[in-house]
């Protein structure tokens, strides 16, 4: 399991310097570190967070947005009618609730269809693993810079220390 401090350090080393989002238990450890470092700007909805990230990107920042995958549903319009057509990239750090059908009922549909949804909309994605942390983050930065599109890094429960380690 990756320590939250190490993960935030790796994000910053990769170049990310603007953090916003809406919490999830899987992301709780990361958000706690970001709050502790006064780097986290809380949003009330995930599409709002993505739009804040778009503004920050245009003002020179390299933004990351944290959200539960249910929030991806809230983001379809902003991704389709802002980021993808205006070419405004951000890192989407998405917790994978409902992975392999093991979660509360409200997470099962999105848990099963999230990667297809990202493929359909045209958002490159990869699932984070402890063994390939640096490689995964370098891939996000490279895709971000080259394609100028949002890029999603999916976090399963237990990859980074969360609320219940």
């Amino acid at each position, binding site marked *: 399991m990756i320590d939250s401090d190490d993960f935030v350090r790796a994000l910053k080393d990769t170049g990310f310097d*603007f953090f*916003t989002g809406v919490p999830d238990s899987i992301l709780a450890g990361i958000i706690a570190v970001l709050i502790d470092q006064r780097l986290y*700007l*809380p*949003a*009330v*909805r995930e*599409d*709002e*967070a993505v*739009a*804040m*990230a*778009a*503004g*920050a*990107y*245009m*003002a*020179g*920042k390299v*933004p990351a947005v944290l959200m539960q995958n249910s929030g991806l549903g809230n983001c379809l*319009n*902003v991704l*389709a*009618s*802002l980021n993808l*057509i*205006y*070419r*405004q990239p951000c890192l989407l750090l998405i917790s994978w609730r409902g992975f392999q059908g093991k979660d509360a009922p409200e997470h099962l549909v999105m848990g099963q269809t999230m990667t297809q949804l990202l493929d359909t909309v045209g958002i490159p994605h990869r699932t984070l693993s402890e063994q390939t942390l640096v490689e995964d983050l370098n891939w996000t930065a490279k895709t971000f810079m080259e394609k100028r599109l949002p890029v999603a890094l999916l976090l399963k429960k237990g990859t980074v220390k969360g609320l219940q380690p």
Partner: protein
Amino acid sequence: MRPEEGTIPSRAVAIKAVLDLLTDQPVIICNGFPSREACKLADRPTHFYMIGSMGLAPAIGLGVALAKPNKKVIVLDGDGNVLMNLGTLATVGALKPKNFIHVVFDNEVYGSTGNQPTISRIVRLDQVAKASGYVNVERAREREDVTYEFKDMLQKDGPSFLLVKITEQAEDVDRVPLEPTEITRRFMKAIE
């Protein structure tokens, strides 16, 4: 604040009153007629014209304002837009960027889709902004009020909220003649 009486300007008149007071400040303009009218009245590379993502103009402006604390960032918005994402008023009120000015042109209708009524006739958006934590909140009904209040807000620490009550009149304007990627590129260069 000046008394609320006299002629109510059209949105184009109100937008012009605001743009006349600006030079190189970043301006985020919501989708629909406001972007088209602003583009026709005074196109500047510092304008970010939205063509979609309704309701998110202040969120984009907030991102710019937080990343560029030394520039005053202006958001030109509409009542239908604000109502779609009232939560962002709370986010702005909580994060309190001093360099953020939110101007809402309120015609009480969805003007870009055929003037269906919004609920801003009933819900006082300026009071919502005040309760959300905007520092300066004003309401304008005349062109001179728009000029007076907006000039004042440019001098003050925000976040500021200016509600401009306007008529339903829209200009006969074309779509913004720029590709979205070009809007991004030139806005980024202009506010560097």
